[in-house]
């Protein structure tokens, strides 16, 4: 089936829109967490949200709502305990990470019958995205985009040197808490696409791909959005063609794009070296060495 014809299907249009929206929010948030070295913290938040999924099943509330509450609480707790240096940062992360998973497992076990869509929470399922999901994603993407556009420099300067930012009167604590909440919400809404286990890839691989070619914060964001979107659409199509899980396929494509990027960088670098060597050897040139 041709790629364009797929747009006749509602599920594909939804999936395509979800891919676009999440590429934008993950592109922005991912750049923030990668450059600020908060990837592991984000891993903790992601897995902690599984506790909310379990509680959601047990009490009959939408699992994603439960996940959102758990993710935000885990994010704020991690941030707070890290600031106060009560425990080592990585230990706090490991504890929230496993505690969330534990709560999730217990409550899913206690829920009578079987838990529908459990696998989609763990591994993602972009083709089952509903219009309600899309609406939430749209609101979040707009919020993240507007927040980063308004406070771009503030966020950049805090991320680079928090202490200095404080001396300039920037409300660092408030910004940190707002940002970690946005990180948590972005993670939860991306669960629909990549699932709890695979989500970190959406927040890290596009950024590192973009970072191969630029070292500007803003350009890493743009590059990540483009890479993320490209990979999601290709992944979606490939998963449809080969009838394999979409989330995993998208991540596989992300890594392939990253490796292609590395290869391209390697080739251009060596090409430039080769050119400059050739110029130096050119007869008639004097003074060079």
């Amino acid at each position, binding site marked *: 089936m041709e790629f364009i014809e797929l747009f006749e299907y509602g599920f594909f249009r939804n999936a395509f829109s979800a891919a676009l929206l999440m590429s934008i929010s993950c592109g922005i948030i991912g750049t923030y967490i990668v*450059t600020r*070295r908060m990837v592991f913290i984000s891993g903790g938040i992601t897995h902690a949200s599984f506790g909310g999924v379990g509680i959601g099943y047990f009490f009959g509330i939408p699992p994603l709502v439960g996940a959102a509450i758990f993710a935000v609480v885990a994010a704020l707790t991690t941030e707070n305990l890290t600031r106060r*240096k009560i425990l080592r940062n990585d230990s706090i992360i490991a504890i929230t990470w496993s505690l969330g998973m534990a709560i999730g497992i217990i409550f899913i076990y206690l829920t009578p019958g079987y838990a529908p869509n459990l696998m989609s929470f763990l591994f993602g399922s972009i083709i089952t995205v509903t219009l309600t999901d899309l609406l939430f994603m749209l609101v979040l993407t707009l919020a993240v985009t507007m927040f980063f556009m*308004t*406070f*771009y*420099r*503030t966020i*950049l*300067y805090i*991320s*680079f*040197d928090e*202490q*200095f*930012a*404080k*001396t*300039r*009167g*920037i*409300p660092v604590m408030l910004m940190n808490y707002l940002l970690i909440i946005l990180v948590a919400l972005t993670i939860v809404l991306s669960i629909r696409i990549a699932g709890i286990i695979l989500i970190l890839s959406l927040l890290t691989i596009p950024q590192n791909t973009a*970072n191969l070619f*630029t*070292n*500007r*914060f803003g350009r*890493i964001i743009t590059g990540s959005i483009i890479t993320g979107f490209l990979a999601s659409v290709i992944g979606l199509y490939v998963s449809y063609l080969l009838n394999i899980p979409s989330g995993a396929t998208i991540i596989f494509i992300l890594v392939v794009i990253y490796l292609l990027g590395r290869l391209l960088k390697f080739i251009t670098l060596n090409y430039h070296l080769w050119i400059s060597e050739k110029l130096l050897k050119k007869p008639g040139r004097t003074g060079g060495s």
Partner: protein
Amino acid sequence: MSKLQLELENISAGYQNKIVLEDVSLSVYEQDFIGIIGPNGGGKTTLLRVILGLIKPIHGNIRYFISRQEIGYLPQVNQFDEQFPITVHEVVHSGLSKGIRTGLLKHKSCNEKIEEILDSVGIHSLRNRSIGELSGGELQRTMLARAIISSPRLLVLDEPNTYVDNKFEIELYTILKRLNKTLSILLVSHDVGTITPYIKSIACVNQKLHYHPSNEISTEQLKIYNCPIEIISHGQIPHRIIKDHQQ
């Protein structure tokens, strides 16, 4: 008598039940140039952080007679993540940030100021480099530019002479001397000898603070060893010219 800028009264400060500074008092006046020396872990950086309002003292008072945002700050450079994607221009611009309105700073007016400052510390050509591509000395220049761009009234420098070559070190002190005409300077250094020719007074910090006012440094003695910084740092003089602490 020049104006008082800030006053620390019987300050004790530390981290998690560990006292680093005890009963420290210090007054900073306009056009002071105080060298803060002492062993590693003696509390030099903590003192600066208290002054900057980055940590709250456990005991004691600080009184500010200037706004806290009128204090320029150059932190130790080894604390930065070299892979962080930020350019020299952006770093220097962050020195102009003002609270939550940072995002709304007008670019055009800032740019002129940034260009000017970059020129004055000799890194204009590096303005579009990201900080990972800079040498230690270039990074120090960038940080100095960031600290002074807001025209502070007090400049606080934490080990600005680490990772720099001799050439820039002399240049740095020349710049500081020029700045000192209009602002006061607090300079932390682990190396007493290097800074002595330029400072007006010394504060020895090792949990407690001992202040040696300017008249205790014999400028005549220092003039003999005037130019090459290194000779002074290896000589005995710096240890002899200040009085013993009265316990």
